[in-house]
Structures are given as structure tokens and as C-alpha cells.
């Protein structure tokens, strides 16, 4: 299904931020925004739901902690107990301080790596992925706001976007 969208291009992130606020106030629907760099506060201005990435990261950290506990118990206590520094490792709890650095590292490792992988999956990024930017200039110095036309008048909408400071306004047929 093809839908009509309008691409409004901006050259300044502050102008873009104000345009986003005005556009939402005028009850137009912003489909997506493409920027050359992360714009601080843009997600809030667009009204996006807060990220749940932090929660997944916490859970991954807990998984990492659990893995390290089980792993050190298997390696150092069950499978091959050794006497290191006069501390024979027959008891997990008595040798626990020696395992804390491992627990810490694996917690960080799991939390960081799995969080990044989750982020890639959630943003649909993988190797050889085709870029989604509709305009190559958004990788350089332009900011692109995509607004759904829906049943608004194209002329009125274009006029409105020009007034918000857009340097270019294009009507595009979007292939889904």
C-alpha cells in the first residue's frame, strides 16, 4: 500500500526541535525523523515511549551474575578443587571473595553485550542492511522530518512546514 508523506528538511537541530513541538501541537502525525547525530531531547519532544533498554540491561546483568556463580562453582569447587594460598576450595561460600571479580566482570559483560545486541535487533540493524534514510543528506548535515499526509490538505501542510523553518518540503509516495 502506498501512502503519501511529506519530507521536511532542516539544517539546524534547534530549529528542528521547535518544528517538532509545533507540528505536534498542530496535530500532524510525525512518522519518523532522520538526523545525522543523536539530538538530545528529541525522543521526548516526539512523544516516544521511554526506552525499556535499561530494564533489559538490568536483567542481562542478573543473568550474567547467575552464570558466573554457577560457572565458578562448577570450575573451582565441583570439577577441579585446588588448594590456592592455603585455601582449599571445597566450600563455595568460604572461597566466594576470590570469585567476586569474576562475578563483576561477567555481570558487566552480559549486561553490555546483550544490551547492544538487543539494541541492534530492536532497531532492525544487521550487517548488509540497506539504509532506510530516504535522503542521503541526513548522513551529512540535514535533518529530515517525515509527516504523514493522511487526510490533511497538502498545500496547507507544506505552508505550515515552511513556516517552521524547513529549507525544503517534498511530497513523496511511500512504498510499504
Amino acid at each position, binding site marked *: 500500500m502506498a501512502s503519501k508523506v511529506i519530507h521536511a528538511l532542516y539544517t539546524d537541530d534547534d530549529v528542528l526541535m521547535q518544528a517538532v513541538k509545533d507540528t505536534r501541537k498542530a496535530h500532524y502525525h510525525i512518522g519518523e525523523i532522520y538526523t545525522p547525530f543523536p539530538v538530545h531531547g528529541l525522543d521526548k519532544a516526539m512523544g516516544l515511549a521511554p526506552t525499556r533498554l535499561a530494564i533489559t540491561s538490568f536483567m542481562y546483568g542478573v543473568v550474567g551474575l547467575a552464570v558466573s556463580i554457577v560457572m565458578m562453582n562448577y570450575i573451582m569447587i565441583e570439577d577441579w578443587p585446588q588448594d590456592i*594460598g592455603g585455601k582449599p576450595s571445597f566450600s563455595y561460600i568460604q572461597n566466594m*571473595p576470590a570469585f567476586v*571479580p569474576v562475578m563483576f566482570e561477567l555481570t558487566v559483560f552480559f549486561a553490555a553485550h546483550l544490551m547492544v545486541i538487543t539494541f541492534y535487533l530492536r532497531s532492525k540493524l544487521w550487517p548488509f542492511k540497506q539504509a532506510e534514510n530516504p535522503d542521503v543528506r541526513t548522513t551529512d548535515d540535514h535533518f529530515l522530518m517525515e509527516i504523514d499526509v493522511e487526510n490533511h490538505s497538502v498545500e496547507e501542510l507544506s505552508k505550515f512546514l515552511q513556516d517552521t523553518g524547513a529549507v525544503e518540503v517534498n511530497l513523496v509516495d511511500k512504498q510499504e
Partner: protein
Amino acid sequence: MYTLPNKLKLFAIIFMVVGALGMVVGLMNAPGSKEEVKEMLANQEAHHGDSSAHAEDVHHDEEHVYHLYHQLQNRPWSAIYVAAFFFFMIALGALAFYAIQHVSQAGWSPVLFRVMEGITGYLLPGSIIMFLLLALSVFGINHIFHWMDPELFNPESEKYDYLVAGKAAWLNTPGFLIRAAIYLAGWNLYRYFSRKYTLKQDEVGGTHWFKKNIKISAAFLVFFIVTESMMSWDWIMGFDPHWFSTLFGWYVLAGMLVSAITVIAMVTVFLKSQGYLEYVNNSHIHDLAKFMFGFSIFWTYLWFSQFMLIWYANIPEEVTYFVSRIEDYNLLFFGMVALNFVFPLLLLMNSDFKRVNWLVIGTGIIILVGHYIDVYVMVMPGTVGASWYIGIPEIGAMLFFFGLFTYIVFSSLTKAPLLAKGSPFLEESKHFHY
């Protein structure tokens, strides 16, 4: 201008009076002679009602009585020392944090400068009290510093202690007092001039006093990091004169900073709730809570680094420190690690929680209790050994110094407008948002 509410004044005075009574009772109840200790032990046994079973121990070997006598005599003094040091350390930590704000030319914090200056207002009274306490130990009024016994340095004496005598170049009473005077003078001079310069800055504006403040703050930080470390050896590590730890200065510093930042956050939230500090928004609280979280983790890192290396190496003269704490102070020693690590970790991890005032206050109370116990567990094993107890002397000293601290901090807040209006970064700070 902030005026000291009468209720707060009354509250602080009540704490001081009750606390002072507790301290006096504690000092009066300390045994005056070895005979009293013997009598006490006999009573305890009679109380248990099985004195016959202990018939052969009844003569209580003299050494035990001697030790117990000294420990019980040390107890009220140690309790006062812990409380005096804890509140002094908050003022000192706040001063260091304040100096860091100047040197880094932080843009977020100028609206909090007067809160920090209010807290460092306790530095001078706290310094005088600390110096008096140290002087009392040096002049033999109390014996909480074991190494101050001259017999330990006398090869003829049967109490001669080879290890302590070897440290005579550092562990000697004139040096101890001179060093204390140098540290305290340096810190107080910085506090005096920095405060003077910010007030001047408010008056005349421009950047002249601002730049001067940066310079003295940088000089202070260099002086501070060296003297703070030496202070921690003198004033705390000295309680266990055989033992040493190379990261002890950092450990004390971490506890000091996290307590100080917590108090800054709590005073800020309190003043905000009273309708002052109109420019402080929840992003400032968020930043302070981030520091509370970060320094709690840093403190735990140092606690564990110190513990694990000594535990693993298991060298007798190093490991005694932890043996006495784990055997005699088990609950306090591990409990305070949980208070200082697990609670801040879980309560302050969530970004949104750092903006919730009551959560910051609640976690702050846990952190302060935890670090009070930390100081307690650093001092007590070296002074009272296993004869510790949390009773009237300990609670009295804590209440007294809490009252004094509250009174002085809030009355020094009244001495200048709560907004440091001359700071060149004030606009940035007012509009700070995260």
C-alpha cells in the same frame, strides 16, 4: 535570606542536650578502677547463677581484668571520637566536593554553592573539637590510641612492642599534634578564603574573584589529597598500629565524599521543601543522586579491594584487622557493607528514582547510617575490642554531634543569600536539565 526556623533550632538544641547527657552518663559509668571491673565480672557470674562451674576461673586472671578495664574506660571516649569524626568528615568531604566544583568550573552546581558552604560551616567547630579530642589523647586524659603508651617504645619494658617502636618516626605524639594542626589549618584557611571570595564575587561580579577562587581551590585539592590520606593514617589507622593498608586514605575519602554528597542532597531537598532554592530543579537532585550512587559503588570497590587482597594473602599482621572485625563485629561489619552497597545500588539504579525526593532522602539515611557504622567499625576494634555495645554513650555522642551539626549548618546557611548570584555559570545552572 534564609532564617533559622525556631522549630529546627529547638530540635537541634534538644538533640544536643539529650546527647550531652548521654555522653556524661557514659563517662561517669566507665569503671574508675580495676576493682570495679572485678566486681562487675563477679556480679555477672552470680547473675548467671552457675558460679560453681567456674570455680577455677573466679580468680580471673589479672591480664583479662586489666584489658577489660582499659576497654571499658575507652568506650565512652571512642563513642565521642566516632561521632565527632563522622560529622567532621561530612563537612570536610563537602569542602572537597565544593572545591572540585570550582576547579572543574561546573555549570550545573552554582545554585547549590550556598548549601555546600553552609555544610562546610561546620568545618571550623568540627576541627576545634577534633583537635581537642586528639590533644586529650596525647596528654593522657584518655587512652584510645594504644600506641601513645610510652612503654611500647622502651626496650627495657616488658610491654616493649618491636613493631610499634619501629614506627616511632611517624608514631610520636609531638609529630601527631603538629600534623593535625597543619591539616586543620590548611583546610580551614581554604574554607575561609573561598567563602570570602564567593561573597566578594556576589558583590562586585565580573570574573576576578571567580578566577582567584579557582586557583585557591586547585591548590587546596592538591594539599587535601595528601593531607587527607595522612589524616586517615593518623586519626583512624593509628587505632590498629600494627596494621597498615596502602589504600586506606582512599577508602576513608570515598566514605567521606559519599556521606558529604548525601548530606548536600538531603539539605537541598529539605530547603526546597521549605520553599527556598527556587532555581533548584529535579535535575540537580538527579545529579546529586548520581554522585551518591557512584561514590557508593566506589566505596564498595575500595572496601572489597582492601578486603580481598588481605584475605587472599593471609599475612598474619595484615589479616588481624579483619579477624577482629569478623569475629567480634560480624553483624556490623557485613551489615554495613550491605547498607552501603546493596541499598544504594538497588534504590538509586533507576534513573527516575533519582528524581524522587523521598527516595533520595530514604536512601540518604541508609547511606549515612551505613557510613556511621563504617567509622564505628574502623575505630572500635582498636580501642574497646570485643567489649563493644551500642548503648547510652554511643547513642548520646551521636545525638549530640547530630544536633550540633544541624544547628551550625543551618545557622551558617542564614549568613548569606541562598543564591550565589555572582557566579558566571549561574544562568547555566538555573537552566540545567537532564
